[in-house]
């Protein structure tokens, strides 16, 4: 499969390279964006290539697990794997590439990670490089920060993102701020990752969305992965970045299957992903809600709507270019997120869009978020706390009239 830079046409020169310098990618992407306004290549999570400008009745993903890609003639085979395996592959490649990359977290070593993201890595790299920590989030996060200041590149795994609330002191005060308060003397190239989001009846404390709490911390970047392809790419980009990056995974997405390229690729941390181009309305989403949106999109297309779906991927900072271009085209915005209503990513995104693209809007920005409710255990109640496809369809119908 041709390796493409999502949202932007690939140049022939790039495909021959084995490893991608994200800076190179960035430069070429900027040039292409200004030249070609409406034609772009889209890699969707089923691995097929589409040219974006003229397709209308697309075959959409019908369920969370992507279908197998049929072998296109001009593409290399790639290999199929699950999302957690993609994360592991990205992690392993980076650990192989740079001996300073290490992992710290609870049960990452001998147990292989609660979600198997670090499986077998301790056998390969040893107990010090894949460090099983005691249950002391604040302290081992601080320890990783101290190690990063003195030259290592640690990856902190929170067994569940919610546990990182205990590390909030270190993440806010040290991770985000130390580069600035030291006048640029110390860099903190850590990656903080873990699964968050609402799962299957995990209860309130295991179903938290921490992106809303962390987004105000100056000095950090936040990204959310949603497919095996972008999981691996974002993991690699986060590890290579000199900034502290928080990578949000989702408990329910770990078993997504997709075919990803054999060649090495690194994605851009700051860019959003065009999932489905369209003309009528822009739907901005991230993480698991991407699949609810795509499910709703199937219904919408059958009803004659043409939604443009963008997976924003970068929760902080927002890719206002991709988002802006979309708003300028469709003039209507719907944000679908799993974050809470109050002070969530959607709230910030609404403010950013209103500030920057107010003139292009034909209707107010609508934001569908989870209810401001501690996630209940009961299945029916839990279902009603998060946004469901039916609500998305209703919202689009209302916005487009």
């Amino acid at each position, binding site marked *: 499969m041709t390796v493409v830079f999502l949202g932007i046409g690939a140049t022939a020169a790039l495909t021959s390279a084995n490893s991608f310098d994200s800076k190179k990618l960035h430069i070429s992407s900027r040039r292409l*964006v*200004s030249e070609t306004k409406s034609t772009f290549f889209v890699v969707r999570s089923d691995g097929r290539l589409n040219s974006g400008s003229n397709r209308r009745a697309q075959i959409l993903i019908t369920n969370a697990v992507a279908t197998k890609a049929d072998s296109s003639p001009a593409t290399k085979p790639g290999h199929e794997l699950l999302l957690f395996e993609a994360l592991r592959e990205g992690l392993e490649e980076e650990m192989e590439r740079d001996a300073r990359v290490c992992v710290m977290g609870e049960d990452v070593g001998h147990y292989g990670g609660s979600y198997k993201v670090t499986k077998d890595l301790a056998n390969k790299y040893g107990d010090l490089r894949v460090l099983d920590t005691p249950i002391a989030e*604040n302290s081992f996060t601080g320890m990783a920060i101290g190690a990063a200041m003195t030259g290592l590149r640690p990856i902190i795994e929170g067994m569940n993102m919610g546990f990182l609330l205990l590390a909030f002191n270190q993440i806010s005060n*040290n991770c985000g701020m130390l580069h600035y308060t030291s006048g640029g003397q110390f860099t903190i190239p850590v990656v903080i990752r873990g699964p968050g989001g609402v799962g299957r009846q995990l209860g309130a404390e295991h179903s938290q969305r921490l992106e809303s709490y962390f987004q105000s911390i100056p000095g950090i970047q936040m990204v959310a992965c949603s497919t095996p392809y972008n999981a691996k790419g974002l993991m690699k980009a986060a590890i290579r970045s000199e900034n502290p990056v928080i990578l949000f995974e989702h408990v329910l997405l770990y078993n997504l299957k997709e075919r990803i390229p054999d060649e090495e690729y690194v994605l851009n941390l700051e860019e959003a992903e065009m999932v489905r181009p369209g003309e009528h309305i822009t739907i901005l989403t991230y993480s698991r809600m991407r699949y609810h949106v795509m499910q709703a999109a199937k219904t919408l297309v059958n009803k004659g709507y043409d939604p443009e779906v963008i997976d924003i991927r970068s929760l902080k900072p927002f890719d206002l270019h991709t988002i802006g271009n979309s708003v300028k085209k469709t003039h209507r915005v719907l944000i679908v997120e799993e974050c809470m209503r109050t002070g969530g990513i959607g709230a910030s995104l609404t403010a950013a869009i209103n500030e920057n693209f107010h003139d292009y809007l034909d209707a107010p920005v609508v934001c569908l978020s989870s209810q401001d409710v501690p996630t209940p255990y009961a299945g029916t109640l839990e279902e009603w706390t998060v946004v469901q496809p039916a609500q998305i369809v209703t919202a689009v119908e209302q916005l487009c009239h």
Partner: protein
Amino acid sequence: MSSAFSAINTIQPLHRTIDNPSVSPFLGSTHKLRSFPACNRAPSASWIRRRFSIVAVSDVVKQQKTKSGSSLSNLLITKEEGLELYEDMVLGRSFEDMCAQMYYRGKMFGFVHLYNGQEAVSTGFIKLLTKEDCIVSTYRDHVHALSKGVPARQVMSELFGKTTGCCRGQGGSMHMFSEEYNVLGGFAFIGEGIPVSTGAAFTSKYRREVLKEANSDQVTLAFFGDGTCNNGQFFECLNMAALWKLPIVFVVENNLWAIGMSHLRATSDPEIWKKGPAFGMPGVHIDGMDVLKVREVAKEAVERARRGEGPTLIECETYRFRGHSLADPDELRDPAEKAHYATRDPIAALKKYMIENKLVNEAELKAIDKKIDEVVEDAVEFADASPHPVRSQLLENVFADPKGFGIGPDGRYRCEDPKFTEGTAHV
């Protein structure tokens, strides 16, 4: 009743007693000290049974004595070392006094926490380190930075908020960092630096064992106070450091007061050194007003860490002559307590020791005093003359990679916007 430098003749016993009045008791506030049976005698069988023995200052000093032959080398320090220690302590004291002056003249603002009285701890420990060893401190960090080698000019400029400060004026009094001298901060929240120091020690071990850098034996010192010893991060890091035998020394500067909270009122078991063996590392209590005693124990602890044998917890009984910060009226502490510790001024004590043992004469010490006065004056002049940060500095160090500010609506990275370098860009 001052505990003079009696290193040669009578050794201060490790465990203070309340029923032996000839020895300085473990003073707290005016509240009575509860009696702890275990501390009323020299290391007994019950302690020896523990895996890690408590290092007694007396034992270390005795070893020192038996090694040497002539009477002059019965002393703990040479003349050069003595002068170095004296100069460092006087620098710390003069610098802090100047800070107070400058604060009241409106040259520095915010919270400024001065180190007067505790110089023996900083000098005693940090002068044993190499440039590659790391230190982590708290908000009371000016003197730690100075002892580690950060020039007084850079520290004073930082306090004045000038761009020539060690952190470009962005850190301030409580956030002294120096990459060159491996000062890893300067933290405002107590306990926050302890995990960072544990991480620095982890890197040292990682370098040796994973990256196979054979001569990687950097030691990290973590300085913090008595109040911190009731904080979770302290205990969590003691555990991790002992578990992985990290090359770190935990130095408790127990000055008995956390702003207005007496250590005895805040802590169920005030003897902090005892908490070391609970985690599997030696716990030592030393007289933190005596730079020679501090140095002897510090040597052993740092060497122990360097050999890879793991961490040590050292509780230094010390005292701050001033209030918690320049904003603290310091009304709670008993004047008798302050007077007692004033007689144990570490600088006066070292001076007395060196003169009595004929290591130096008055004139040499006066010369150092004068030199330090000039250094501090020069630092103030330099800081005064330095420029304030310009607006373009505002956004420069938020991210190591400024692409982290993201992509603006026009498709360009925000950091490429010319207004970004002017500091006026909207991020």
